[in-house]
């Protein structure tokens, strides 16, 4: 049974996509609510530098060292951004736009100079290829398990533990930073921990899905979930659910239309966003239109 699961290529592709989606949506929910979702874009580009530097130092292309290196690069990105913004001369969004292209381009330059023959290239880094996750497997308890499935499973579990354990703290720090600080919950530290996990998730997702699908999973499912619920824990749940459904639907549609699987998964998150936007029970376009009409009728009477 399990062997059949791990041997099935479609199952592996869908499961990997779903795990990337869950891991990304969990951290993404807090980034979206905090208004910093674009930091995931910045991070997922600038960690190219981290990946190359760690590879040059240790020779490791993936694994725990790479995760730590990526987390540090992600934090460096945010730290530099906040440093620039703190001068008061550069707005926060502009600071993001200034920092990550610099780090990304240094990473690409290093790649071109030192890593021509190595299997890291810009195309893979940006777009990934989820269709090939089954090629790179490790042996685990007698089963051949794709490397990506394993690392994404670990990241999804880590992120789940983080948001479950610190649910109350993350909620307060995201909603009311001043009170969180006054009560001693160190919102700055929590935020950096969240971004470190985002960076580690990004680098784990690189092999499998690339930066763009990762960014889509960070931002789109939480945004769609935000349109259909008023409760934070439900938002986390719905976002993960939407990410999993997008993974299934994306694979199916990609096979049907013979197009890129990763691209189709990203498209599906967008489709769910449109559905939530139209049919959301309270904030959806249709619900709002109906409410306005009812109010107008009530006034007429």
């Amino acid at each position, binding site marked *: 049974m399990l062997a059949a699961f791990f041997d099935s290529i479609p199952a592996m592709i869908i499961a990997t996509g779903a795990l990337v989606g869950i891991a990304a949506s969990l951290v993404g929910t807090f980034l979206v609510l905090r208004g910093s979702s674009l930091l995931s874009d910045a991070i997922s580009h600038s960690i190219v530098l981290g990946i190359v530097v760690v590879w040059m130092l240790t020779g490791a292309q993936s694994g725990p060292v790479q995760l730590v290196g990526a987390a540090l690069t992600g934090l460096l990105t945010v730290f530099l951004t906040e440093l620039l913004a703190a001068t008061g001369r550069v707005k926060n969004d502009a600071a993001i736009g200034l920092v990550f292209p610099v780090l990304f381009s240094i990473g690409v330059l290093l790649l071109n100079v030192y890593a021509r023959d190595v299997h890291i290239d810009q195309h893979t880094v940006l777009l990934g290829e989820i269709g090939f996750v089954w090629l790179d497997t490790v042996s685990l308890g007698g089963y051949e398990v794709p490397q990506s499935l394993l690392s994404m499973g670990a990241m999804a579990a880590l992120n789940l533990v983080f948001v479950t354990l610190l649910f*109350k703290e993350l909620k307060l720090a995201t*909603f009311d930073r*001043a*009170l969180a600080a*006054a*009560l001693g919950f160190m919102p700055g530290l929590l935020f950096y921990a969240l971004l470190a996990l985002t960076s580690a998730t990004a680098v784990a997702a690189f092999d499998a899905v690339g930066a763009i699908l990762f960014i889509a999973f960070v931002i789109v499912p939480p945004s769609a979930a935000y349109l259909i619920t008023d*409760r*934070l824990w439900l938002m986390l749940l719905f976002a993960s659910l939407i990410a999993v459904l997008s993974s299934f639907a994306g694979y199916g549609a990609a096979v049907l239309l013979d197009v890129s699987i990763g691209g189709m998964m990203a498209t599906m998150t967008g489709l769910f966003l449109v559905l939530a936007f139209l049919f959301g029970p309270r904030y959806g376009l249709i619900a709002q239109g109906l409410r306005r009409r009812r109010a107008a009728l009530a006034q007429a009477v």
Partner: protein
Amino acid sequence: MLMSPSSRRRRQGYAAAARPAAARLHEPRLAAHVEDLTVSYHDKPVLFDIDLNVPPGVMCAIVGPNGAGKSTLIKAILGLVKPTSGHITLHGLPYRQVRARVGYVPQRSTVDWDFPTTVHDVVTMGLYGQIGWFKRPGRREREKASEALKMVGMQDFARRQISQLSGGQQQRVFLARALVQEADVYFLDEPMAGVDATTERAIVKILGALRDAGKTVIVVHHDLQTVRSYFDWLVLLNVRVIAQGPVDDIYTADNLRATYGGQIALLEHGDFTRPAPAPGPGPAPGPGFDAQKEDAGPPQAAEAR
């Protein structure tokens, strides 16, 4: 960038009066004690050489023009902004040691009211400090939150999403969140800004009850017209402390002129030379009063209640 306090003083040509060393350490008899506080933003002092003494059991207004540093003063006391220099104690202890005895109501506009959470949940947040890291609020906390909502008259809204509240209702929820903390010293940042007359009166009544129970209530306030009817202690602030003390001694034309400087034209219309209106049926109407109200009903209706 960061200068030692002494070098900053020298640069500014200011000589600190020598004080006995003991007075610097503890002032247990004061609810809030601030000494030589300077806060700078990009090298420009926002608060300069603040000395502040608020005795326990008073309802204290911090009043001053825009940019006077009123919010910054509260934030510095609560350790939310880093001062360039200064020494702060609450009931004789640094803030970190008395966190549990201090309630804080930030400005309403500083949070995102579209955040996916309920009224009851926001009030429970006031108890997070007592609950501590990792643990979840239990039944005791939920009941406390419900009681606080009742005190501010918002019990019927407990399950509502917070974006469905009016400005006045939002402020009541914030007040309830501070009430659950059962603190000794309360800091409120503009709690009466943009609320309706009914809410303003409800807030004043609750704050008065806290004061009568021996708590200290320190409020950043924007409306000069109501200072004397609401408060018994007054701090006039404009980067420096212009004057502080019992409101009847401090609320003088000279002090207000010194605080507001160029904006004096606004004051000439004020009624600070008249005796204070009796506390109770609400703020005295005056210039600028109606403009502050966001969703106030007709004045007559408010008065009739």
